[in-house]
């Protein structure tokens, strides 16, 4: 698939916003955190969620009609995501201004539901074998939570300095876990065998079939939307960008960076860059069966 920047930004930004809200709400729920930390985290979380929502509009051909996407919640994971994201934002805002525990608790439930909806948008497409696994919603959840907790560390240096250390430890552990599960998913996907072949695509049972014409000389939507057209080396480089930037470097900065705000901000910035690379590879790795029909130009 061709990676869509609007969707990459949507899923990475809201993931970090969700993770940040979740950790700050849990700390507030146990009456462990001071109000300033909670307020700051919720504001930053809302900013990330709003930025992600804004990015998603750039994916639409007709953004003015976007409201219609709330209607098919019975069958469409995308529709469910479109409902849960603004509902979650509204409850974070309500929790922020009112401080009502119930609003925060419902927001936390919606936060988890949103991770699941976002993952299922991809995991429900069963012929995209790289996506059609429980690992997809699990990765969206773990990567989002890890990036949000990593962001909470530099925020804590502003509003709750004495707790930055424990948060850094939590960010280290969660980032490591998310990194391991995503790494395992890369290995799983590398072993996949495509169920569809040119033989099943055109229904001719023969081991040797070569396409000599795709029916047109110029490009089409089919040749643009489903191919990333980057050399394998670029995809490999992006994969390693994630593997290095998401955990080893930020993990080192979180644990052995001297505990300065600059080290924590750098840790988050590096990890988020790694997360963007991961999301790019997520799309680039997915081999759409329609590509079997577009193997030869002209």
């Amino acid at each position, binding site marked *: 698939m061709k990676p869509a920047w609007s969707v990459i930004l949507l899923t990475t930004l809201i993931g970090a916003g969700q993770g940040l809200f979740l950790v700050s709400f849990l700390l507030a729920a146990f009456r462990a955190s001071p109000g300033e930390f909670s307020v700051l985290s919720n504001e930053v979380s809302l900013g990330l969620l709003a930025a992600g929502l804004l990015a998603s509009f750039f994916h639409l051909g007709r953004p003015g009609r976007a409201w219609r996407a709330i209607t098919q919640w019975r*069958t469409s994971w*995308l529709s469910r995501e479109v409902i849960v994201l603004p509902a979650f934002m509204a409850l974070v805002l309500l929790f922020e201004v009112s401080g009502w525990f119930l609003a925060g608790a419902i927001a936390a439930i919606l936060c988890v539901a949103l991770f699941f909806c976002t993952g299922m948008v991809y995991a429900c497409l069963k012929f*995209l074998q790289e996506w059609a696994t429980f690992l997809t919603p699990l990765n969206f959840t773990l990567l989002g939570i890890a990036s949000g907790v990593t962001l909470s560390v530099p925020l804590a240096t502003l509003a709750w300095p004495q707790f930055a250390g424990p948060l850094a430890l939590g960010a280290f552990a969660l980032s490591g876990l998310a990194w391991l599960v995503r790494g395992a998913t890369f290995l799983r996907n590398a072993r996949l065998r495509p169920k569809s072949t040119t033989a099943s695509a055109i*229904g001719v049972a023969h081991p040797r079939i070569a396409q*000599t014409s795709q029916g047109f000389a110029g490009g089409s*939507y089919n040749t643009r939307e489903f191919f990333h057209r980057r050399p394998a080396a670029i995809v490999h480089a992006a994969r390693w960008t994630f593997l290095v930037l998401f955990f080893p470097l930020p993990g080192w900065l979180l644990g052995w960076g001297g505990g300065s705000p600059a080290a924590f901000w750098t840790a988050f910035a590096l990890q988020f860059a790694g997360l963007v690379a991961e999301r790019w590879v997520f799309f680039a790795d997915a081999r*759409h069966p329609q590509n079997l029909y577009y193997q030869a130009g002209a």
Partner: protein
Amino acid sequence: MTTPKQLALVIDLDVCVGCHACVTSCKEWNDGGSAGPLTDRNAYGKDPTGTFFNRVQTYEVGEFPHTETVHFPKSCLHCEEPPCVPVCPTGASYKRAEDGIVLVDYDKCIGCGYCAWACPYGARELDPGEKVMKKCTLCADRVADASLPEAERKPACVMACPTSARLFGDVHDPESAVSQAIRERGGYALMPEWGTRPANRYLPRRKRTA
């Protein structure tokens, strides 16, 4: 999502000569019909691109000198379990209850492209001018038009095919010409592995002895 009546195309790969008459007649009719315009970009320039409902591709099967050329017309298969329909967040993508044609309501489509991701066959194209999803309608505006003579209430591609490689009818009526052709010639579905149950079927090439 089985409908009582299921209109579909049955395409005979044994007689298709790859002339692209179905492609051009489809483009001509649907550019001006209810599905139009089908936007082109740079149509007469160096790198043309455009929106089409139907393409004819060519494959070479076997190894020289034992090769066969297969011309392969490709359009929406109007699946009986269309994966593109339930994923649509707006309800713009639907399967018509009375005849099983899979259609897009262009006034409801937000152009998110998710249905195209959900189609394993690549049957859907986002129109770069209209910014909504387009796909074969089986010429829904021809086949139900009572003002046309009955013989012309067929998709434009079927009317244009010079070798009668394209049959059109109700595949749920066992007595229809399409159902008979599927039975007698072993009509098959594309990518059966995904359970989409395409309504369109293809008739294989016949074995010939030299």
